[in-house]
């Protein structure tokens, strides 16, 4: 026990120890901002991978670590689409995941937001045109926000989500 407390004291507070993002996010359109306003200052996210390389998943996971701690902005990851306010979709939508994506979208209660995360989700990236890819995401479900990058840094994702919530960056 003593060792654990000692470790925590020695470590101190690490939240916020990251370089500020250099990339400026696209402004959020008024219609989307209005749609997001019903969720107030909390946002439950369901993450759906439709064929990413798992880089975007790693950065989404990083968002929940003590350094970024997205929970302090009311952002948390829901275990089921039924509990979600927003879907974060990564990857170029493969032929095998197309149906699953539509099912998840249908299972998410309205009103809902869809965020396309990463270059693949935004425009299929390097996989554009492949026989196994039917994306991008917006071909199958309406997308409200796009966050580009391969993969986008956690600080950039966090900024984009905060902007969506109407918070200052």
């Amino acid at each position: 026990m003593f060792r654990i407390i000692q470790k925590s004291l020695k470590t101190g507070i690490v939240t916020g120890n990251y370089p500020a993002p250099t990339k400026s996010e696209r402004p959020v359109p008024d219609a989307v901002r209005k749609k997001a306003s019903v969720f107030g200052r909390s946002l439950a996210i369901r993450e759906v991978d439709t064929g990413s390389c798992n880089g975007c998943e790693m950065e989404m996971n990083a968002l929940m670590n003590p350094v970024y701690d997205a929970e302090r902005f009311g952002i948390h990851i829901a275990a089921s689409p039924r509990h979600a306010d927003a879907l974060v979709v990564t990857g170029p939508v493969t032929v095998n995941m197309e149906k699953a994506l539509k099912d998840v979208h249908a299972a998410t209660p309205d009103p809902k937001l869809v965020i396309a995360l990463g270059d693949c989700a935004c425009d299929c990236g390097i996989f554009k045109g492949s026989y196994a890819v039917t994306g991008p995401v917006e071909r199958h479900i309406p997308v409200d926000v796009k966050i580009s990058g391969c993969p986008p840094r956690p600080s950039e994702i966090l900024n984009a989500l905060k902007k969506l919530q109407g918070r200052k960056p």
Partner: protein
Amino acid sequence: MDRDERIESVKKAFGAKILGADRVRGIPVVTAAKQDIPAIASHMHRASDLRGTLSLQWAVDLRPRLAAYRIYYLFTLSGGPWLMLQTELYGEDRLFPSITPRIHAAKWYEREIRDMFGLIAEGHPDLRRLVRHEHWPKGTHPLKKDFSWNHVMGRQDGEYHFRQIEGEGVFEVPVGPIHAGIIEPGHFRFSVAGEPIMQLEVRHFWKHRGVEKLFENLTWAEGVSLAEKVSGDTSFGHSLCYCQAAESLLGIEVPPRANYLRSLFLELERLHNHIGDVGAICNDAAYALALAHCGRMKERIMQINDSLTGSRFLRGLNRVGGLSIDLPSDQLDAAALALKKIEEDFTDLSKIIFNNASLTDRLETTGILKERTARDHGVMGVVGRASNIDRDVRRDHPFAAYDRLRFKVPIYRYGDVRARLRVRVDEVHESMDLIRQALENLPVGPITNAALPAPQPGDWALSAVEGWRGEILYFVMAGEEGKIHRCKVRDPSFVIWPAIQFAVLGNIIPDFPLINKSFNLSYAGTDL
């Protein structure tokens, strides 16, 4: 034993059935007619002087040069050397004899070959579709040369039949493809009676993106960025393996400084993944404290990656012939200092982790992968080393600067979650030491060899890299006009996924996430 003696051993046993024996870039290759393949493969697998593990089986459509398919078998013999076997199917021939009844590790490879090329392994006990889900139309075999890379696929109705266990009180529990956490999609079908798992069937390939076909559109230099996206968490390992294969094929000598830096970056990738996994394994046993500490250490390493190279995933760094950027020594020294602090930090934490009795109770005897099962599947890497499989490409086939660096390969025998955790903890310390050694001995000089000669169409090369999960393999064959004819990618996950089906038996479903996390396999790298 000399490598040629291995060929002699096969020749002695089979005489005139061996149609040819050759060495290609140092790898002995035996050619035989297709009907003799099962017997010869079985000999390579079982003969006491060879004891080969099937490491890879793959096909190549040789058109337009030759109207034939070639099937390759790669064996890793005891002690590490390679031995290859190949056969050809001419004209309209679509059948080849299956080796799965004799060599279990071929199970998924032969199903993959059937899906991607339409070549049928006769005698295979399970010819259900693997990569192609049931809605893919009949006759769509993407890696055939007459199938275009941007083919628009229709949909058909179809049903995948899971293996079923029937009986009183037996239930099926379907999980996935979309899971509760932030993880990749895959389907798991459990059969349970009460709590213990009687059977697990893994159904993957939801993320199949057509990576191998896309390679065939690219030139050698362009392939690097696709290799980085095979499995994002292993961006550097995959791009390194691809570059090595291309360099070996093109005959490019990589400058020593680039080799040392490549080893350094590969270890950095291993570090952040292993430290992240240690935290995540503990978290799946409800020990969130370790996750928090490991999460911040992993984040720190990724920030170091970013500050050194401009990419948290070490992307855009490798190029065919060397590296794209050089690093000044003051930056490297600063990174070494930061890593030293992280190592001390991690040592403190591992003491806390291994002193926790309730955590140990969850980890010990959970998800045991027996050595025999691991061998039958050809399992290697972190998972293999926890089940007493003493294989490490860095030692057995030294690449980059590993022939000039000293390190130990940690081996554990029990094959449970705790053993896999221990392998990772030990490897973190080995990686830290390797990075120190690489920095101490870092030579000065150029970091790239820019010339890209054109290879002869039909030439091929094979390369292996010990990524943080295990052995990554790339096979590349040159095509016309400086393009890639075929690029076979094998992430270690492809080999280890079938083995997890055995590791969970007798465990309870609530322990599955923990077991799965201790394997931590890539879905993207398997599905391609």
